[in-house]
């Protein structure tokens, strides 16, 4: 069980039931549970879509697309069944927020799925939870069972005449499956290889039917918008960036943890006030602002507002909310190598730029970090990464390339310090052996 933290600057919306026993359906009902879905049943589907659109809720998985807009792409009439798919395949390094939602407030995700269903005229939803989160899958299985027993799911929900089924689904370990089209492949019982788009899932998705795919945190936000109103939610953050965000603070911090802060919260404040500053009295060197796929920021670039648009302007991304803080004892070449080792492991191997690019980058960085680097490698790392960008069917290639480009650009000197067979300046003698050449 993951431990909870708190800070006075927090605005608890999605996390408001954390630690309050809301996995129990009666307790959830006491805490305003299942009120939003009943309200939605009395609304026109278009009105729900517009409400969510106006709230400025944007995808919490990382892409930051307007959720209401996504729902509006689903065709009204469809010869094939429409589906809602909750993405709980949380795997982006640095991200551990959906875990808390499933652990403490599973019914809010179910409610979000049902509301999305009502809004798009769908009658079935799937909640996909990554295989490693077995205890959370069990919590979700019980929550779904309890909701069925009360008549909140199934035929004629809440006596409204509307039918809606919710099913759980478990993964078996694959980062790539967090990508929406690979997620559908996985749910259909196949390898998680992405699909070519168009057609987009909103038109042709699960088993060929129109499908809405939303992150678990996105769906858990929806019931709060229904009850609190679009205006209230939108005003929690800066324009076009409604609501709050579960930020997962990790790395070299005094108080790491998952904190719910308003969108647009200052990154510097997040690190020094909320996270309690850098541990062991060290200095800040770099920050990964939203999961390992985001370009890193240096210590001088952290006075930024943590919302989708400001982060884009700062040359990086808000991503999945995983803020990884790196102190000045860390070797950025090694850091880059560890990131690349991950992407090389997770690349599905379909697109050549991603499959070959991640592999060559891992090999080059491994050799480089062990003192076998030549000056030309530095440019090659950047060149190779830049040539992966935008040349793959899914964003995994970009996710691997973006942090590399930013690390080479911002920490070129650290790469140069590894040249001419010198040992890594940050490693204790002999410790460099720890990174296996071919894992």
């Amino acid at each position, binding site marked *: *069980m*993951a*431990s909870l933290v708190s800070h006075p600057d927090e605005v608890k919306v999605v996390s408001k039931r954390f630690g309050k026993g809301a996995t129990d359906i009666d307790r959830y009902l006491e805490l305003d549970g299942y009120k939003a879905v009943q309200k939605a049943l009395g609304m026109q589907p278009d009105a729900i879509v517009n409400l969510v659109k106006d709230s400025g809720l944007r995808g919490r998985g990382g892409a930051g697309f307007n959720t209401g807009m996504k729902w509006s792409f689903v065709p009204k009439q469809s010869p094939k*069944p429409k589906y809602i798919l909750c993405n709980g395949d*949380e*795997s*982006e*390094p*640095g*991200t*551990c927020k*959906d*875990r808390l939602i499933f652990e403490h407030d599973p019914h809010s995700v179910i409610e979000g799925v049902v509301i999305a269903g009502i809004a798009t005229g769908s009658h079935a939803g*799937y909640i996909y939870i*990554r*295989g*490693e*989160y*077995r*205890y959370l899958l069990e919590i979700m299985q019980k929550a779904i069972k309890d909701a069925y027993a009360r008549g909140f799911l199934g035929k004629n929900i809440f006596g409204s005449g509307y039918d809606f089924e919710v*099913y759980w*689904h*478990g*993964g*078996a*370990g*694959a*980062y790539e499956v967090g990508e929406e089209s690979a997620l559908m492949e*996985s*749910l*259909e*019982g*196949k*390898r*998680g290889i992405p699909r070519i788009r168009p057609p987009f899932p909103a038109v042709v998705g699960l*088993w060929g039917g129109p499908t809405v795919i939303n992150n678990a945190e996105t769906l858990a936000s929806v019931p709060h918008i229904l009850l609190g109103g679009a205006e209230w939610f939108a005003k929690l953050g800066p324009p076009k960036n409604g609501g709050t965000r579960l930020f*997962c*603070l*990790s*790395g*070299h911090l005094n108080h*790491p*943890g*998952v904190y719910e802060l308003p969108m647009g919260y200052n990154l510097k404040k997040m690190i020094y006030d909320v996270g309690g500053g850098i541990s062991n009295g060290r200095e800040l060197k770099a920050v*990964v602002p939203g999961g*390992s796929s985001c370009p890193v920021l240096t210590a001088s670039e952290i006075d930024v507002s943590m919302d989708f648009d400001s982060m884009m302007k700062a040359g990086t991304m808000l991503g999945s909310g*995983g803020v*990884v*803080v*790196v102190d000045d004892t*860390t070797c950025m070449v090694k*850091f880059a190598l*560890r990131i690349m080792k*991950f992407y090389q*492991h*997770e690349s*599905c191997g379909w697109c050549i730029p991603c499959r070959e690019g991640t592999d060559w980058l891992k090999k080059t960085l491994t050799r480089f970090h062990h003192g076998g680097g030549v000056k030309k490698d530095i440019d090659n790392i950047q060149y190779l990464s830049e040539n992966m960008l935008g040349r793959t069917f899914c964003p995994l290639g970009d996710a691997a390339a973006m942090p590399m480009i930013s690390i080479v650009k911002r920490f070129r000197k650290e790469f140069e310090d590894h040249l001419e067979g010198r040992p890594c300046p940050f490693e204790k003698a002999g410790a460099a052996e*720890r990174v*296996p050449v071919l*894992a």
Partner: protein
Amino acid sequence: MKFSDQFEARFADMLTHYPTKRSVLVPTLLYAQDEVGYLNHDVIHEIAQRLDLTELEVHNVISYYSMLTTKPRGKFNVQVCTNIACMLRGGEELLDHCKTKLGIGHKGTTPDGMFSLEEVECIGGCSWAPAVQVNYDFHENLTAEKMDEVLDGYKRN
């Protein structure tokens, strides 16, 4: 091939969740692996038959997912995360410690079949790093000493 009653009940229930039989494949393989220990030929043959798939199609899926294995593992599979958030807080040192303590390397199994060890990618314990999963149990904010306690705890069971 015989699975537990719980497995059979869950399998029958899952088949009603999807418009195609094949959709139950990934979770079913993991539940089968939990019972048998690994996905041996008998399990693959059985599941392929039940879902009207060829064994090759099942193998094709197994090889994609990192949690699925066709090789036996220890009773307790110790999975140490060394991805960035854990690396910054001593994940690699923890992996080294486990290697020394158990006397095995990455994907190795102790001679008594009790433990196996695996270096894994992000398991979602970033804010409580370094994190380790033993089978499905999370252990977080670990140090070498705490890791010893965790391993000793499993050994006693």
